[in-house]
């Protein structure tokens, strides 16, 4: 066991919630150590390969729970390395949501107007750009044309992809080989390193305890570089401030496991989990109808037949993001790409006579995979998720050496959530099945429960101590000096992709964290600067 190390600030996790405060605190003069449980890959290590042990499994976690499975990043850069870089701002009504508690669940201090300046900062730092129709890949164009045919609107969605570098390879979930996707490896993290921050990959934080001087001791295990089921040395590092940003599937687990050493946690730690109301539908298009009804054709005469081509989600319809609709009936529908390996097993055969997700009819459906279009629902769920007792280590019992694990999250969708999903499913059919364009079926929840690529709210901010774990400065109630700045801090589902909102909230939290650090004797100032970008992702040599 290594012990005796100390620093000013320990940041747990290096995704948006960790990288942003790590940069600002380091830039302001604090000593910062970032502990990341996953590996640190360079651009050249982002493989176009499904083989177990490639980057596809090294940097990505699929954690099966009881009724909810969570997909997320597991690497330096966190979710930003595996995300699809779709970056809309959350609609204004989201901040007024009441959700399951019957009153506004966001802190009074946060509205779309007060968050917009922080959104602006992230948009500049990554950067995030508007997308133009002439660069929208076929799948997005097809969805847009289907929306127009149904009398609906559709938007190219703001994105953190440099389209001039993008090859439309659709390998985003394995990391971007071409440095087109603006992950944190290209902005906040290299800038944090340039200011002296240290990043330690394969360091999995297990729990926190207190030090005699009012600070915290962070207890970690070193994870094997190939088989994540194997843990090596343990160690500790002391800090005056701890920022927990391990992701909404892990942050509450670390805090729950710390209860014996830190004392009672706020009741909202590990409760109110939201899957961002997510759900998927698969449409299988009839290419003749694509040409005849929508007038679409590629240079070789095919109408679509291009599921493999693109860069994740690029077009969404926001017609149902209407503040006048009742809560739980508002959602966005977004064209999505879901890669092979995980992206076919849950798709269901329309009009199945036998099993809907396996068997002969499913195999026939797979033959038409290039004609598939995946449609992504982001709706308003009811924060139904609750974390059970923590596993022995980490946030899951790992099954495979990488990627696949079993976690303690339990999720049972309420009638409110189910109503929203049913409305969105019907809407998807209405748009895509018109005039014989496609057949549409939702993914089954019978295999691994519901699923989310955007876990949220398991340690959320709020004004009411009874229903929020953090105050509106992201400080953990009853545990001063511990801050939570990742997706777990977001109070509820956002109806759109959440990365930009998570990042904006992290930016907003930084001045308060700097003040708390100053009060604890850390010589740090808040400059409000933004990181200089870099062209390519290269890990720094990590001290042993």
């Amino acid at each position, binding site marked *: 066991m290594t012990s005796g190390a100390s620093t000013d600030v320990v940041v747990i996790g290096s995704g948006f919630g960790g990288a942003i405060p790590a940069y600002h605190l380091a830039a302001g003069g604090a000593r910062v150590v970032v502990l990341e449980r996953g590996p640190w890959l360079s651009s050249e290590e982002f493989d*176009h390969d499904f083989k177990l042990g490639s980057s596809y499994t090294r940097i990505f976690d699929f954690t099966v729970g009881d009724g909810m499975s969570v997909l997320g990043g597991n690497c330096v850069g966190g979710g930003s390395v595996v995300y699809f870089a779709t970056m809309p701002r959350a609609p204004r009504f989201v901040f007024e949501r009441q959700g399951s508690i019957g009153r506004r669940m966001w802190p009074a201090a946060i509205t779309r107007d007060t968050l917009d300046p922080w959104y602006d900062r992230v948009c500049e730092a990554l950067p995030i750009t508007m997308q133009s129709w002439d660069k929208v890949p076929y799948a997005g164009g097809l969805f847009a044309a289907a929306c127009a045919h149904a009398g609906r609107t559709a938007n190219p969605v703001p994105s953190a992809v440099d389209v001039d570098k993008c090859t*439309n390879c659709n390998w985003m979930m394995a990391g971007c080989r071409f440095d087109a996707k603006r992950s944190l490896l290209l902005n906040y993290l290299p800038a944090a390193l340039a200011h002296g921050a240290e990043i330690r990959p394969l360091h999995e934080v297990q729990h926190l305890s207190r030090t005699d001087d009012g600070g915290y001791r962070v207890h970690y295990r070193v994870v094997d570089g190939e088989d994540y089921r194997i843990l090596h040395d343990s160690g500790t590092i002391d800090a005056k401030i701890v920022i927990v940003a391990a992701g909404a599937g892990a942050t509450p687990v670390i805090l729950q496991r710390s209860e014996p050493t830190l004392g009672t946690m706020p009741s909202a730690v590990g409760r109110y989990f939201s899957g961002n109301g997510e759900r998927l539908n698969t449409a299988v298009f009839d290419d003749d109808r694509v040409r005849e009804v929508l007038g679409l054709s590629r240079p070789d005469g095919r109408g679509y037949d291009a599921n493999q081509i693109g860069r994740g989600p690029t077009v969404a319809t926001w017609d149902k993001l209407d503040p006048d609709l009742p809560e739980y009936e508002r959602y966005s529908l977004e064209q999505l790409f879901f890669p*092979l390996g995980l992206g076919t097993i849950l798709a269901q055969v329309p009009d199945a006579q036998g099993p809907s997700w*396996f068997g002969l009819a499913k*195999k026939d459906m*797979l033959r038409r995979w290039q004609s598939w279009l995946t449609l992504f629902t982001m709706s308003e769920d009811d924060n139904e998720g609750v974390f059970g007792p923590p596993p022995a280590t980490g946030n899951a019992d790992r099954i495979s050496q990488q990627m696949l694990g079993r976690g303690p999250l339990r999720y049972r969708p309420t009638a409110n959530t189910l109503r929203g999903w049913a409305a969105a499913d019907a809407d998807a059919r209405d748009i895509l099945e018109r005039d014989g364009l496609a057949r549409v079926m939702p993914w089954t929840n*019978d295999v691994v429960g519901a699923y989310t690529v955007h876990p949220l709210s398991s340690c959320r901010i709020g004004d009411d101590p009874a229903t929020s774990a953090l105050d509106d400065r992201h400080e953990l109630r009853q545990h001063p000096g511990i801050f939570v700045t990742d997706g777990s801090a977001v109070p509820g589902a956002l109806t759109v992709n959440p990365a930009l909102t998570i990042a904006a909230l992290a930016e907003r939290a930084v001045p308060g964290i700097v003040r708390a650090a100053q009060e604890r004797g850390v010589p740090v100032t808040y400059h409000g600067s933004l990181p200089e970008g870099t062209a390519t992702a290269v890990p720094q040599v990590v001290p042993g």
Partner: protein
Amino acid sequence: MQPETPEEQQARVLTLEAFADTIIPGTKRSADDRAIAGVSPDGGAVESGALALMEDPAGGVSLMLGTLSEALNAHATRYAEANGLTLDPAVPPFVGLAFDHRTALLSHLLAPDNPEKEMWVGLALFSNMAYDSAAHMNTRDALAAGHPGLLAIGITRPDDDGLWRFPEYSYGRPLSRPHPHTTPTGSPA
């Protein structure tokens, strides 16, 4: 734990192949192929490498395969008794079931309310992954070797450096009205 006898190993392989073939069916490898039911005209999960993927220590189910095979055959024996079926003693009970009966049994074992569901879902996941992504081998090699799943799904070949690029990717024109309340940054209001 006793080492597996050759007969036990053969029974395990046949049983797991029959399971994989029920998830993604294929064509028989030979006239006397008993594991593959032969209900599909081209290669399925078995020919795509389902056994290799299940047996890969990286996957996490390899140590359970003997137990799962025995459990599946016990279920098959009970299923045959309950349905008045006579099983061929020359092959493991699950292999002795016709394709429709294999499907019915797996539908029961994989049902949401089945207490054993989770372990069978794991096997189904690996069967599907062998077919749809050849996760036991390099994707480029799988394509070069004519992997039946990747070919049937229609994955294109990568460039010579093993990376995919699609220079032709867009219809290149506006295809819908944007939402009228879209903000200047391109977001919902």
